[in-house]
Structure formats: C-alpha cells, structure tokens
C-alpha cells in the first residue's frame, strides 16, 4: 500500500513514524521482505561526511558609516569575491589565504564563523559618489552579519571513483596521498548509507527536499554541477561511475561547527568536510527495494590517477564491500584500501536526523520539481585563435 508525504508527515507529528537508518533497514528488509518492510518503515535516513570542494558561503556584512562598495575583500587573509553588490560576497571553500596558503583557506574561515569566532575583515574600494569610503578594517562574527548561508554548487556525489597510482612516484591528490607502484587505493563514500546511492533514480530527492545540512535544516536547491544522470548503471539502476550531484543551501547561523570543517590535502589545496543527511520517505515498495541496497551490490572503478588525461583508465571494477574489507586484489597483488570520508561521522549524522524526525522536529518536504534523468556532462574544448 502506497503512502504519501502528507501521511508520513502526519505520523511524524503524532510521534508515530518509524524511522531507521539506511544501514539498519537492510536487516529489516531481510527479515520481513520488501512488501511488509515498506508498510512498517516510514522514513529511511542516509548521510555522508566527506570532503566537498565545490562549497562556499554567501555573506552580507551590512553597511558601515560612511558606506563602502567593497571591491577587494579578504577574511582572515582569504580573498572573497568582490563582484557582487556593495556588501555582499561569496567566500569559496578552496580559496587559500594570502599568508598561510592552503593550510588555512575559505573552508577554515567558514568553520571559524560557524564556531562563533571573530574574523578579520579587510575591504578596499575605488570610492564612489554614493559609497565614499575607500578602506575598511574590522572584525566580524557570524551573529553580526545580516545573512550568511552556505550555497554549495556540487555536493554529495552519487558514487565516486576509487584512486590508485601506477607510476613510480608518490602523488599528492584530492584523493589523498597515493603511494607509487600501486601501493594503495583510496575511496570516498558512505556506501550503503550514502544519500544518492539509496535513491539512484532520484524518485524522492529533488528541488526543495529538506535535509540535514551541517547541523541545520537546509534544502536541495538545484541539481548539482556536473550532474550526470546519463552515467552507466547496473540492471537495477544504481550508477557505476560518478552520477548525480546536488546543490545545497542552508543557514550558517543554525549550523554546528562539528559538521563543517576545513581540510587540507597536501600538495593539492584546501577543501571542506560537509555533513549531509537526507531522509528518504518510503512511499512504496520500489523505494524500499532501493534503500535496502548493500555495499556488496554497489560498484565503482579503481582509476589510475597517474595518467595525466581527463579519461583515466580503470584498473578494476570493485564493490564497496571489497573496498571496505581493507584490501583489493588487482592482478594477484593485494593492495591496501583506505577511506577518505568518515563513516563514523556519517553514522552520527544519520542518527541525529533520525532523532529529529522521531521527535517531530523535522518534517519531509516533497520536491517541487524533479531532476532530469539522462542528463550527460560535457567537457571543455580548447579552441585555437586569440580573437573570433
């Protein structure tokens, strides 16, 4: 028997909703079968906590007296974008600071703001008739700002490559340190707990979906960049390569610094660990079948990052159960595997979201628009000639 969003929300309001995590639901489906489990369970929570470079914050500082039209802006030495209106900016997570480089970047400023710390704001301007001030040097806290919201253009990748290095030198990458001669494999996913792997065809996750975002209640605002729903899939529909992505939005003032953290990848740059949890309403048996997926049935490719081309070769297709086992066999060589995203923190987020829903503090939002399937990504062609 199918359920509606409204029926599930009414159960949440009465404190009667059955909410479990995407790991817990696996055994429930094994014991009861898909049909009965679909009637019993109302919401399944998913989560991830890992590095997501395509992240940043929109901030509005308010006007000083006399006012300034900020052109060049730094926050704790990290450059923020000066091409918006007078006191609006976008602070990108991967922007390095002018003094400390990648050791302290935009993501660290965002974390410090959420942690309630004072941040050094310096701005310069040409000065205009309506905005006469040319310089500004002050300290701001999150609570002093008018608006502060994260808008992350590409988060929660639906599946991602595992990385290996077949060259003879050590590589420093966004997939961590890769030892030479296929010395190790790294991977980044929460697997069977991962949001978009539990809803592979985006039947419930769309524009407007309410989510756990850095400890606040945020929303899916758009399809993420490099949205690839035309990716190869297995016969059930699960992507086998990087697939869909999401653009997320949420109020920084309601976030918890535990779930938004600056990160440094040696020899690569700054990134941001973002904690995201997405509830999946069990509307019918089809959705229940999707969320009962296990790591042994989810596959990705081990990609050789030493090939300096866009299309890097895959050395093996592996399941997440194999990656999680600690080693993978490639042509008879046993290679150690290491995770890059934190399953421990992802579990904590799924638990927290579960509790919010059980306590009636979080309600499901039905998407106001679904995302397109069959959306392929384009590359960038390098065209010759200086003028056209």
């Amino acid at each position: 028997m199918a359920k509606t969003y409204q029926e599930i929300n009414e159960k949440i309001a009465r404190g009667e909703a059955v909410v479990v995590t995407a790991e817990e639901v696996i055994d429930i489906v094994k014991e009861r079968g898909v049909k009965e489990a679909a009637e019993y369970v109302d919401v399944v929570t998913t989560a991830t906590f890992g590095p997501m470079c395509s992240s940043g914050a929109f901030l509005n500082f308010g006007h000083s007296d006399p006012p300034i039209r900020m052109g060049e802006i730094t926050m704790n030495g990290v450059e923020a974008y000066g091409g918006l209106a007078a006191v609006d900016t976008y602070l990108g997570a991967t922007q390095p600071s002018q003094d400390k480089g990648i050791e302290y970047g935009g993501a660290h400023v965002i974390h410090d703001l959420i942690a309630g710390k004072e941040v050094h704001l310096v701005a310069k301007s040409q000065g205009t008739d309506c905005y006469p001030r040319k310089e500004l040097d002050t300290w701001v806290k999150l609570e002093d700002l008018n608006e502060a919201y994260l808008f992350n253009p590409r988060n929660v990748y639906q599946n991602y490559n595992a990385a290996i290095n077949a060259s003879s030198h050590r590589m420093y990458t966004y997939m961590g340190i890769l030892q030479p001669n296929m010395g190790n494999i790294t991977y980044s996913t929460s697997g069977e707990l991962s949001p978009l792997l539990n809803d592979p065809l985006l039947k419930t996750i769309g524009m407007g979906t309410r989510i756990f975002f850095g400890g606040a209640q945020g929303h899916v605002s758009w399809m993420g960049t490099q949205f690839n729903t035309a990716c190869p899939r297995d016969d059930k529909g699960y992507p086998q390569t990087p697939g869909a992505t999401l653009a997320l939005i949420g109020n920084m003032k309601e976030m918890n610094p535990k779930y938004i953290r600056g990160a440094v990848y040696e020899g690569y740059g700054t990134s941001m660990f973002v904690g995201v949890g997405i509830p999946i309403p069990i509307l019918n048996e089809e959705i229940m079948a999707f969320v009962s997926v296990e790591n042994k049935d989810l596959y990705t490719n081990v990609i050789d990052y030493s090939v300096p081309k866009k299309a890097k070769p895959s050395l093996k297709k592996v399941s997440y159960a194999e990656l999680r086992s600690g080693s993978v066999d490639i042509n008879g060589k046993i290679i150690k595997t290491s995770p890059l995203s934190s399953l421990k923190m992802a579990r904590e987020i799924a638990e927290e979201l579960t509790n919010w829903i059980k306590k009636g503090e979080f309600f499901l939002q039905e998407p106001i628009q679904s995302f397109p399937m069959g959306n392929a990504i384009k590359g960038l062609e390098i065209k010759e000639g200086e003028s056209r």
Partner: protein
Amino acid sequence: MMTKKILLSFPQKATGQPMAMELIKTYHLDFNILKAYIDDNVKGTLLLEIKGEEADIEAGIVFLRQNQIGVKDIQSIVEVDEKKCVSCGACTAVCAVGALEMTDDWSLVHHDDKCLECLLCVKACPMRAIHAII
C-alpha cells in the same frame, strides 16, 4: 637489560648535562638523545632512549623527578588529537606498518607500539590532527 623511551621536560635552570653524567655514573645507564628542543626562555624537552637494568632505570627516573624534571614514558612521538580527528581514514593510506588503523566501528586508532615515527601521516591528515610532540 632493557630499553625504554622517555620524554624529559626540564626548567631552564636544570640543564641536561650534569643530570646525564649522574645517570651514567650512579645508575649505569646508557642513553641516546633522539631529539632535543630548547625553548629560549621557558623550558627544554629531550627525547631519550635509555638502556640498563630495569631497577636502575626506575631509580634513575626517580632521581630525575626529584630534580624537577618531568618524565613521561612514550612509545611514539606521534600524537593524534582526538578533538580534531574525524576518523576519515586518510592517514591510514600512508602508514606502511599499520600503526594507524580503522577499528571495526570505523574510528581511527593509533597503535603507538608499532609506529616507526616516519611522520608521513602528519602531512596526510586533512584535519591537521596529527603532530609530533617534539
């Protein structure tokens, strides 16, 4: 005979040299200075490997403590700051001896008895949660 690694922290006035002579003479202890760090005005830190009979080592440590020298037994100079660590696992990728490992519940554990102090993990940690204490 046994070997032990200890970290000494001493105030400026208690210099290392006379203490060391005392350790050799009175307690028959051999030692190697693995690392030394002297902070100009405040205090100094010495990482020693000492070798000798167990009873002599213990008596030597009591002697050092009586002379206002802090003594800490250590296995490895590598420390993981639990408040900063998010258990992502990135550091385990570079630890060749398995001193950094994920437990069954996917928390990070540092087996300091296995650690070779190569310090590769320090740079591998995106949270900068790992540091050498000296």
